[in-house]
């Protein structure tokens, strides 16, 4: 913060609609391992925000504890960030987002942070539909404490120091849907284009957008046969559709397409998700179909990626509070303290 960051420059070249360059969206250099899936995701957050022309000051960053949770330092240096407690990112974000409901938020958590210690808060933020992107950088392993199984590790996974995992994994997407999530997607850090498009759609969604991104840990869990490895992901990824996102302000150029080959989903802000059919029909607006698909993917050992479930018109958490238009954190004493004339009335309300 000692070196001043550039203000919106005048140079027209390589700037987005709000006049900012890509470098206005970067963070500090990553201190994660070279090749870590998380770094790839950070880069896609930068790209998505740049391309969506988000003003960085209008974005908040949240995280819990773990490798994944370190990453908000590696993107959007001009955004406010809060790296909180292990598994407690949701509650901090839930409170903070009342401060100014015009601000977007992206939270980065991990499978340890969300599927174990933070499972309760994860499910409750989803249930409340707090307006934020909730990324789970899912690698099946605890990295910072050096390679213990996480709750998303597949049964039978063998890790150097810990033997064979005996328990069934928790499926983040299933848990989210079970908690009445309004936006659930799964992706793979080895598929950056899809990651980026999903992040854009997730930011535009009003409500909690859960992105379960398989993000390999190159140090502790990248063996070829491990379900969270690059190799396994590449070999088993089966996109549900070709996913693309058109922001609200862009003109939508309707391509000619065969009826039944493409599905469009309009988000709350008017942006459009375009899902091009690949193989099987899949409709991401049916909860039941989504759960069935996830169940089948688990049985068939497939990494199904793409938009799993979306319910764009449900009100977000703060929508239910009928808040004043001025951001709450800019209200003055006149708005907040009842006048002196009310004191006698209050005392009369007592006995």
């Amino acid at each position, binding site marked *: 913060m000692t070196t001043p960051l550039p203000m919106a420059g005048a140079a027209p070249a390589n700037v987005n609609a709000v006049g900012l360059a890509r470098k206005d969206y970067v963070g500090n250099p990553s201190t994660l391992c070279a090749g870590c899936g998380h770094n790839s995701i950070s880069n896609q957050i930068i790209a998505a925000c740049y391309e969506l022309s988000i003003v960085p*000051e209008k974005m908040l960053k949240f995280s819990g504890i773990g490798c994944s949770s370190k990453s908000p330092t590696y993107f959007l240096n001009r955004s406010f960030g809060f790296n909180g407690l292990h598994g407690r990112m949701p509650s*901090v974000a839930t409170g903070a987002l009342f401060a100014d409901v015009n601000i977007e938020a992206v939270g980065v958590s991990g499978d340890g942070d969300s599927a174990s210690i933070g499972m309760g808060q994860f499910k409750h933020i989803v249930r409340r539909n707090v307006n934020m992107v909730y990324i789970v950088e899912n690698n099946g392993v605890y990295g910072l404490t050096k390679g213990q199984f996480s709750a998303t590790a597949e049964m039978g996974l063998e890790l150097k120091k810990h033997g064979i995992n005996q328990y069934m994994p928790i499926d983040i997407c299933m848990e989210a849907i079970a908690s009445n999530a309004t936006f659930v997607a799964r992706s793979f850090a080895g598929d950056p284009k899809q990651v980026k498009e999903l992040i854009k759609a997730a930011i535009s969604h009003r409500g909690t957008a859960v992105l379960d991104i398989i993000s390999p840990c190159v140090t502790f869990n990248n063996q070829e046969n491990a379900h969270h490895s690059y190799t396994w992901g590449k070999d088993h990824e089966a996109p549900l559709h070709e996913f693309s996102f058109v922001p609200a302000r862009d003109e939508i150029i309707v391509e000619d397409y065969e009826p039944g080959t493409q599905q469009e989903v309009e988000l709350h802000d008017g942006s459009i998700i375009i899902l091009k059919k690949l193989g099987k029909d899949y409709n991401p607006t049916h909860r039941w179909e989504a759960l069935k698909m996830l169940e089948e993917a688990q049985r068939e050992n497939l990494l199904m990626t793409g938009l799993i479930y979306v319910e764009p018109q449900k009100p977000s958490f703060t929508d239910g509070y*009928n808040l004043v*238009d001025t951001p*709450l*954190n800019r209200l003055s004493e006149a708005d*907040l303290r009842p006048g002196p004339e009310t004191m006698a009335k209050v*005392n009369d309300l007592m006995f």
Partner: protein
Amino acid sequence: MNQKVVNDFSITVGTVNGSGSSTANNTILRAIFKMGIPVSGKNLFPSNIQGLPTWYTIRVSKDGYIGRREVQEIVIAMNANSFTRDQESVAPGGAFFYADDIKQPVTRNDINVYAMPIKQIMRSQTEVPNNLRDLVSNMVYVGVLAQMIGIELDKIHAALSFHFKNKEKPVSLNFNAIKAGADWAKENLTKTDTFALEPMTKTDGMIMADGNTAAAIGSIYGGVQFAAWYPITPATSLAESLNDYLPVLRKRPDGKHTYAVVQAEDELAALGMAVGAGWGGLRAMTSTSGPGLSLMTEFAGLAYYAEVPVVIWDIQRIGPSTGLPTRTSQGDLTFTAFIGHGDSHSVILLPGNVSECFEFGWKALDLAERLQTPIFVLSDLDMGMNQWMSKPFQYPEKPMDRGKVLWEKDLEELKGNWGRYLDKDGDGIPYRTLPGNQHPMSAYFTRGTGHDEHARYSEDSDVWMKMMARLAMKQETAKEYVPAPILDETRGAQVGIIAYGSTESAVQEARVQMAAAGLKSSLMRVRAYPFTKEVEKFIEKYEQIVIVEMNRDGQMYQMLCMDFPEVASKFRSVAYQDGLPASARWIREGALSKVKVGKTATAKKIVKKKPATKKKAAKKTSAKKGAKK
């Protein structure tokens, strides 16, 4: 009949939990209050929805003592399961009223016994619907008692009108039952006891309220914008009162809200949300009790180290563990003072009565933003949930203090040159910016990990030590902002008493009793931690200091020993905890057993040093002080 005992006795009603007797008991309490007689009511209830015995004790005190008294002159037994115990609890010469459908032997012959045909009297109340008959039948004992000790019926009517918000039907149903009870008693009972009420004017200008309601309303006058909470006895009614009063007091013409109250999934999330909101620049709070506070520990530590303003009300009940969930305590003091791992110390406010619950409601929000740290307010079950006569709430005498916040124009003036944890003013309190600030230099990254003055991650030893030293210095700064203690000094006092919280009235009563036994005392009621300079002065003055509190280990005593080790040999701990509100008895007995009575142990310089205003205070007798609070 012996000499009449006027306006100075206690009444206990034994009922079945969940039977709806609280309306009846509150009606008695409020009617006596309306008669101008100092009165206090304490609900001694089990952790149970329905079925277990519960007691409500009302103390009438012409001298104004509203602390608990252990002797019961009048007992009303409505519960067969506690009948024997209730009968035994009546003081010799006392009065014992019981519902005559309890077919158990009356064995005492040193008390005045009155059987009440509650069911028979209710039979005449034909307009009471079947589903309400059990509830309304409680009113019959109100009527019998009113007739027998002289509670004025118009005051009872006023109490009912208040309770039922002037709804005619429930008021008349209940009042008629009371009237029927009174009429029956007039016809059928001959008064053989000595207890009577006579109107006074000692409650004029006072209100009756509970501390949790006062805390909620105080917080609203403090501009609270965000509250997250999780249900827990005895704190629940604080958050519920926010829900009751926010829509009334912060109503806007456009119908929109300037606040949000969220019921969280647990106390971890409750404080997490409040910390998030406080970080975001909202006046944020949570309310809980001991077990909840245990869960909040990790966020309290984060908020301390990351310097996030937030207010945490702890309505104390007895621990450890689940403890006695419906019993009062002052047992969370040391836990709160050092909450969290690593070095930390908290800023704690200690309200001593209902009007201070209101006052500290708004003050705590000011302090949180001024000091950028969690502010803990320790109330307790007795203060929080029981009805107390109280001074009316006073409108805040100062405008809100929003602390050190930089907005866009401030950053422009500074040319973006600021650091989140930079101690620019030398008081240990840095400046902060809030989310939504559009200046490109506004953002910073908050973390519970090591950070430097510009909020950057750092594992550097020097940076760590510097930051921790500044936090320690901030705690020193806090002493200038927290409420000073209340002093009540007596000329020639042999001992200084330090107390805090809800024990004050019992302490005042004990002081009068101690003075009668030859021990003069001065009282300092501490209202905050860290201890201010006034605390230090008081300790200097007296050779013997008695520290009174409701816990086993003497937690305030421990903290005083820690902060003033050089004089710790002066300190005598009178710590007692049985789950019941403080009584003068154990305070008096404890103090008398711990101090050397007789020799004047006051240091000479004190009298000389005493400023004029304090002399005035000292002239008042302790009894007078106790009478009006």
